[in-house]
């Protein structure tokens, strides 16, 4: 379980998050939504233990994550940050292999090689495994980064806008895989993802955490919380949710 109690985060004297309290259990996909500057990425990095809150406490599986040592954190959650630049020339297999680093600290064993092969297979990267990262399309490259985070084999996977540079086909491809892998009986992983595309959130999220101006607006199951009224209020523009071909779709009101 991830639990935040009265968490406030400040940066350069200004408050980015104010008194955020929420809790959610394992399993499924949790989408962080909200307008630009709402504090979604800050919240994700605070959950990851990379930003220390000015006030409050963040617990992941009962452990105060801001006090946990980096290796311990890396066994509890994997964070895929936004727009990471890699200067080294890596193949897809080498990048995904870094996901195992918390387990082997630079000395891979047989179990690590097996997990790398599994992550490559899970994200349909086996045929691209020996290709250089800079020879891949944006979608393939992003899939490789998600596979690296997946290979870390943590109960929680935190993704900061992984779809921001992808076309709808590639975005859907990644979300389909994550959705399938977080269903009960699958890999028993949980995904917390920052999303700008409300259509993607409506289609794939099990839970919604909505933020505005650094404050929590709502947190709970998507079917209960994600309503046209809530979205209109959150984004200060008329939005409604309609059912099209059996799926929820967000459209302008």
């Amino acid at each position: 379980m991830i639990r935040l109690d009265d968490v406030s985060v400040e940066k350069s004297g200004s408050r980015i998050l104010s008194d955020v309290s929420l809790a959610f259990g394992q399993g499924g996909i949790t989408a962080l939504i909200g307008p630009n500057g709402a504090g979604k990425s800050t919240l994700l990095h605070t959950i990851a233990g990379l930003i220390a809150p000015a006030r409050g406490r963040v617990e992941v599986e009962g452990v105060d994550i801001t006090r946990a040592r980096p290796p311990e954190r890396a066994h509890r959650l994997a964070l895929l940050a936004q727009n990471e630049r890699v200067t080294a020339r890596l193949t897809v297999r080498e990048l995904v292999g870094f996901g195992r680093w918390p387990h082997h600290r630079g000395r891979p064993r047989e179990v690590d090689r097996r997990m790398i092969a599994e992550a490559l297979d899970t994200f349909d990267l086996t045929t691209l495994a020996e290709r250089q990262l800079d020879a891949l399309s944006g979608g393939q490259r992003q899939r490789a980064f998600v596979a690296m985070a997946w290979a870390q084999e943590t109960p929680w996977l935190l993704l900061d806008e992984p779809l921001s540079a992808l076309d709808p086909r590639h975005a859907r491809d990644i979300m389909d895989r994550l959705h399938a892998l977080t269903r009960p009986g699958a890999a028993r992983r949980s995904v917390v993802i920052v999303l700008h595309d409300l259509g993607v959130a409506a289609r794939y999220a099990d839970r919604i955490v909505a933020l505005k101006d650094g404050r929590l607006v709502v947190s709970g199951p998507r079917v209960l919380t994600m309503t046209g009224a809530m979205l209109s209020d959150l984004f200060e523009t008329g939005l409604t949710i309609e059912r099209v071909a059996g799926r929820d779709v967000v459209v302008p009101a």
Partner: protein
Amino acid sequence: MAERRLILLALALAGVSALFILWNLRAPMGFILSLRLVKLASLCIVGAAIGTATVLFQTVAANRLLTPGIVGFDALFVFIQTMLVLTLGAAGFATLPVLAQFGLETLVLVVAALALFGALLRKGSDDILRLVLTGVILGVLLRGLAGLAQRLLDPSEFAIVQQASFATFGAVDRAQLAIAAAVLALSVVAALRLARLLDVAALGRGTALSLGLDFDRVIFAALGVVALLVAVSMALVGPITFLGLLAASLAHAILPTWRHALLLPGAALIGAIILVSGQFVFERLLGLQSTLTVIVEFLGGLLFLFLVLRRSRS
């Protein structure tokens, strides 16, 4: 493949070193051999130190165009030389105990570098760009101050500062050389111990932290090693700004790997090969003196421009 190329580089260094020592060796052999061995050792130490330091620095800064010289090291060295001559005078500077001067310069360079790195990194390593820019600005300031101070010197004092501001391998003290060799050995061991951690750091701060790397500590340790390597090589022979860029770029081109366990020794070997082979060609084949560092700076500067233009085009 990279391992085999590393062995070839080691063999190449052994080859050019043998040529440097044995080419045209005449009587009195013992005397000439000892002179050549001292020069060879200083060339190898400086080349290896600058090559290693530059690969470390480029990984820390996540930028293959940067060298430690860019963050003001060279300017600080020239400033120290100028202030020593200004305060002690030409005679005082000339009679300064060699080891004391070497120790003082190394200490000031290391302390200044660690103060800069420490002050900026305390706010988090997002500040790498700020660190580089602050270093560039400090470099300009120090160069300006040194230039101002140089106007107060008489011509003979100015000539001493000018001579000390360019790297020269002709007058290396043996005691300094022994200390520099010991510091280099310790620094290379420290760098190689960091190698596996630097492989992860090269993925970027966010990813490295997510993988459980104590990123800030690794970066600070790497910058400490950079400060030590650059300070020792500079105090030994003087500044060579672009040698590091040449060595690191060639290491990345020759060794197709991201593994610092191979890149660091590779850049060290290439740095040494450039200096030893360059000195061999200029001194033994062409009979020229004191032109090697000028050529290294010229070629390094051209490479820098080429890399900048290639990057802006892509």
